[in-house]
Structure formats: C-alpha cells, structure tokens
C-alpha cells in the first residue's frame, strides 16, 4: 500500500430522488441531487467539498457512506466496490467510515450519557471485550479529543457546543475508522471554538493517519483544512484541484464567484464589484447545457446547447467549463497578514 494510493473513488455517482404525484403516486420527475460525480480521495489527505446550500454536498456524503442507496455509479473503498455491498461487507465498510455532523445539538441523543454514546459503536462492531475494556477505550478517546474522563457520566445538555462537537468526534473515532466525513463540523460554533476544533481535527489526522472529506461552505475554513478542494454546483463537481491552485487561479466562473463573495476580515481589502446574482436554481428539470449558465457572467449561446465535459486544464485541475477563462481573484493571493 503506497502512501499515495486512493482510498475512496467515486465513479459517475448519482443520487436522484423521485418526485411522485397523483393518485397512483406516479413518478413525474427527479430531483437530481447528485448527478454524475467522479473524484478520488488519496490516503491521508483532506478533500474539501464546497458549494452553496442545496447543491448536493450532504447528499453526496450520505450516498458515499451508503446511508442512502445510490441511483447509479460506483463507490470504491480501498479498491473494493461498495455500491452494492451487503451484510458483512457493508458492516465492515461502516466500521471503516464515520461521520461528524454539523449540529452537535441534534446529533447526540439527549438521554444517552457520553460514555454510552462513545461505547455503543464499539459494542455494535464487537471491537471490545467486556465493559472494562470499553470504558478504558472511552476514557482514552475522551482524553484524545481534549475532554476529561469525568465527563463520561454526564449528558449532552451539560456541555457547550464546542464540547459537544468534541464528543461527536470521539464517538466517530470509537470504531477506529480510516475515513471520516466531516459535514460542516464547525459552522454552528463561535470563531474561537472553531479554531480549537479545527486544530484538534488536524492533530488527529496526523496522529491517527485519517483521511477526511471536509464539507463546508466557508472558504476560509476550507483553505486552512484541505489539501485538495472540489467545488460543487447543482449536483455536479465543476472544479477539482489542489486547494492552493483553486484559490490562486480558479478556472470555473462559479469558483471565481464564490471566492469573490467570501468576506475578508480586513478593511483595507474591502472589495466588491463582481457579486453574482440570484440563488442556486432548483435541481428539478435541469435544462440542457451548462448548469451555471443562468448566473454566469461569461455565458454564451454555446453554453445553453453544449454540456461541458470535465477537462484537465493543468495537472490535477479538472474543470467543467467550455471556455478556458482567464479569471483573477480580487485579493492578492499568498500574502501573509
């Protein structure tokens, strides 16, 4: 196993939700939440997934984890096809993957002690023999995430948001996973707490050799956390590249628009000008051609007719745009504050 082999591979992954209507509940259309996504996540890296709400980020993660069945395409984990895995194979896949959700107020059972929340997954997967070993591991995990073993007998309501997120991380790590999906893990937290959690996640990755899929709509957080970044729009990944590359020279007009919309905490760099109008269109009845054309400042007639295929514009940078645009982000990249 070389260090650079890919751990997770998505091939043309699709998840369509049928829209039913009428007396016989006939399918009248589909919400194409994820519509043909392909990328690889290398062992030990953090892959960022960024996009506006409703673009399919969370559905992609859920489908990848087999929490919902994909409509089409493939999910490969360590080279093995997990798309149709059942029984033992699926259980094993569930042990190797884990997820931390956005809202730690909703993702922890209010009637379960911290100890019970952390030891439950170990018991389900038969990872520990007996109570003592489970308790010992729970104590180790809670220390690992920066809390105190005394906290184990408490209930979630006794903790602050940041502490709850630490508990959720400890629970995700209970099964010793190789791959962790972090779905907006800090967006409900304050900045100072966010900093603590992000640093914790970075340290854990290094110590436990974890691979992350990091979902966020916060571009500053993505820049800090991720080695590579995928930009998602209306069910498709429109650009993938090294994070540094994305931030310095984005090639898709949507990536460019996102970067230009991100507020910068520096009054000297107060900018504006190119703000894209409108919201993400509905993923029902997506018109032919490029999905971004309605909001794109560079769109032409060709965009309405032709579907842009992913093109490799530079090594490792894949873009779904018909044109090779020269886009500049309106902040000077790489300058240190």
């Amino acid at each position: 196993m070389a260090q650079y082999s890919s751990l997770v591979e998505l091939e043309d992954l699709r998840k369509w939700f049928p829209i039913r209507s009428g007396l016989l509940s006939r399918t009248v259309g589909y919400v194409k939440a994820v519509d043909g996504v392909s990328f690889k996540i290398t062992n030990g890296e953090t892959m960022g997934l960024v996009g506006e709400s409703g673009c399919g980020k969370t559905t992609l993660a859920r489908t990848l984890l087999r929490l919902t069945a994909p409509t089409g395409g493939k999910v490969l984990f360590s080279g093995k096809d997990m798309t149709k895995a059942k029984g033992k194979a699926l259980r094993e896949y569930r042990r190797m993957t884990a997820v931390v959700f956005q809202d730690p107020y909703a993702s922890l059972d209010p009637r379960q002690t911290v100890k019970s929340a952390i030891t439950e997954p170990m018991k389900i997967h038969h990872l520990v023999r007996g109570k003592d070993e489970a308790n010992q591991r729970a104590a180790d995990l809670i220390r690992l995430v920066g809390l105190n073993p005394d906290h184990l007998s408490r209930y979630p309501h006794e903790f602050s948001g940041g502490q709850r997120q630490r508990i959720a991380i400890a629970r995700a790590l209970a099964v010793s996973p190789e791959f962790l999906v972090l779905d907006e893990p800090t967006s409900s937290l304050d900045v100072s707490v966010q900093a603590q959690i992000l640093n914790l996640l970075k340290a854990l990755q290094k110590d436990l050799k974890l691979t992350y899929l990091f979902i966020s709509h916060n571009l500053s957080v993505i820049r800090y956390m991720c080695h590579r970044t995928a930009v998602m729009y209306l069910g498709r990944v429109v650009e993938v590249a090294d994070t540094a590359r994305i931030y310095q020279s984005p090639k898709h007009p949507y990536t460019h628009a996102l970067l230009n919309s991100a507020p910068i905490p520096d009054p000297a760099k107060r900018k504006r000008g190119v703000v894209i109008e409108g919201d993400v269109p509905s993923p029902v009845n997506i018109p032919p051609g490029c999905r971004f054309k309605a909001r794109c400042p560079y769109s032409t007639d060709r965009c309405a007719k032709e579907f842009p295929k992913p093109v490799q514009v530079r090594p490792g940078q894949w873009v779904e745009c018909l044109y090779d645009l020269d886009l500049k982000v309106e902040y000077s990249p790489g300058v240190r504050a």
Partner: protein
Amino acid sequence: MLQQAAVGKEVALSIRGLKVVFHTYAGDVQALEGVDLEVHRGEILGLVGESGCGKSVTALAVAGLLPINAEVTAGEVLLDGRNLLEMNREAVRITRLKDIALVFQDPATYLNPVLTIGLQITEALTSDLKVFADELIAARMTNLQTAGTRSPEEEKELESLRRAKETHELNKKEGKRLASLRALDYLKLVRLSEPEKVLGMYPFELSGGMRQRAMIAMALVRRPRVLLADEITTALDVTVQAQILELLKDLRDKIDSAIVLITHDLAVVSEVCDRVAVMYAGSVVEVAGLVEFFSNPTHPYSKGLGASILRPDTNTENLESIKGSVPDLINPPSGCRFHPRCPYAFQKCPESKPPMTMVSPGHEVACFLYGG
C-alpha cells in the same frame, strides 16, 4: 460620553449602564452587566462577540422584547433622548411601531407561513393608520408628482390625497391600497425580482435569500430610526450574504437609519461596518472605528478574536485560539470577567471591573492594561 465626542454625527440610540438579569431555576443569570453603547444616524455599528455574550439580549432589550423571566435592573435606553424604559405602554408601542425594527437570523422562523408576504409587510403600516397616514400620503404624493405625465385618474387621486393630507386621515381601504404600493417600493428597494408577484406569495415559495430580503423590506417599510439586524446573514450562503451586505450598505446611505449589525463574524464586520463594539460576558469591552479596530485591537479578548479568524485570501499555518470557554453567567468571574482566560491578567483584574478608557479619539477599551 466619550464615544459621542469622537464622531460628529447625531446620536440615534444610546444605551447607558444597561443591566439585565434572567431569573431561572438554576439561579439568576447576569446577562448584561452595564452595557454602554451609542449608535449614530447613517452608520452601521458592528456588535460582535461569542454566543452567550449578550449581543442579542441587548437588541431584545432595546426593542422591548425580552422574555418574561428577564428583568431590566438598571440603565437607560435612549431613543432621541427619550428613555424607552420609562415610557408608558402606549408610547412604547408607538415608538416600537415607528422607530425600531428588528431582523432576525432565521427568516423561515419569523415569517408567518400562512400569510402572504404582502400582508405581512403592510400589517405594521395598516395596524394603526393614525401613525402612518401622513407618511403614506406624503410618499404616494411624491411618487405621483415626480412621475412626470399623469393620467386623469392619477390627477383625481392626487386631488383626493391633498384633501386627506389636510385631515390627516385615511379610510381603511385607502390605507391598505397605499400600504401595498409602499410595500412594492420597498420590495424593489431590497432588489427582489418580480416584486408584484412576491407580494402575493407565501414564505415557502421563496428561497432563503429572498425571505431575508422580504424580512428586511418588512423592517424598512416603516423607515425606522434604528434597525437591529441580528445575525441576518449567518444562515445564508456566501454569494447571497454578499448580496445582502451590499444591500445593507446601500440602505444605510439611502434611508439614513442607524443600523446595529449583530454578528460573530469579523469578516462580515469588515465588509460593511463603520464602527465596531466588542462584547464579552455581558459588557462592551472595546469600541473603535473599523480601520482602527482591525489595525490596532487593544483588549486582550479582541486580540484573541483577531488571531482565531481564518482568511480566504491567505494561507494560515497555525491557527491560534482563545483558551477556555465563555464563563457561566450565574456565577460570573469577579472583576474583569475575561481575567480567567486572559494571558495578561494581573493582580488587579479579579478585584474590580475595569472602566472604559480612551486609547485614542473614538477608541475606548475596558482593560487595566490601558489605565483605569
């Protein structure tokens, strides 16, 4: 007050020594511990701090919307020099109706799902026609007079409006009609596309960004002197957030209201605000102009906040964070409430509360390191 001296603009809202206590089963929560704040006309003041520091409680106290277990134990809220906390109920009602507006974080929760947007926007205007009659008439007359050529019907309307202007009265039907016209103007002002259609729509038919615009239109339609915007962009995507922030700046210039933007996001503050006030555990610990605040943050807490923010435009190798967490306000730390987390704390800090001290004109801080 020091803050007033620094900026030449007229003070619209002034909060002095405001103390609020929440009575709970666990004990009394000292939510606000003497808040001093001034907001001027035509400015956006950014009110920042961590959750639980009292930002929203301050806004609710100004609007008179504190929950039933809260008690204002001291202080004044002055709107144009009149203390809202001492007015009789009727006067407070009129002031709230006319002069103070709030916009909340989550428009999906605060809009009524079974009423149309149009009805919700005009409700405030038509609920008490005495309050808004003059304004509605004047606004419509200006619109008609500046329109250039007028049809005979419009001439007739103008004539009847002139009569109404003298009596200061509108009948219900006329009031509703004028209110809808005004609602339409404000939906245009917040740049909602197809405003005529939006008036008849229900909240579920709008996207998050559109709902937030509708909420802002609802707040502005009364031309309030003070707009309290509580985390209005937190639930929105960056692209929509950028649109709403642009709108806010535009409105500050057009309507000349005093805007308080409550947020925990310093990046948002840096994009739109003119001044910044930092709150920690129930009091304002630093007030400064925007550029001064970002170039020379003075309070140790402000410094910590500055160090823990990430930027989209630079690589950060090691992110710092403020140690510890927000204190328990039932048994708050003595003296300066930040001292248990402060890297510079010394003997004096736990003993007494530091007063606001001037660092430079318009820049004040509550910290013993700078005197007091």
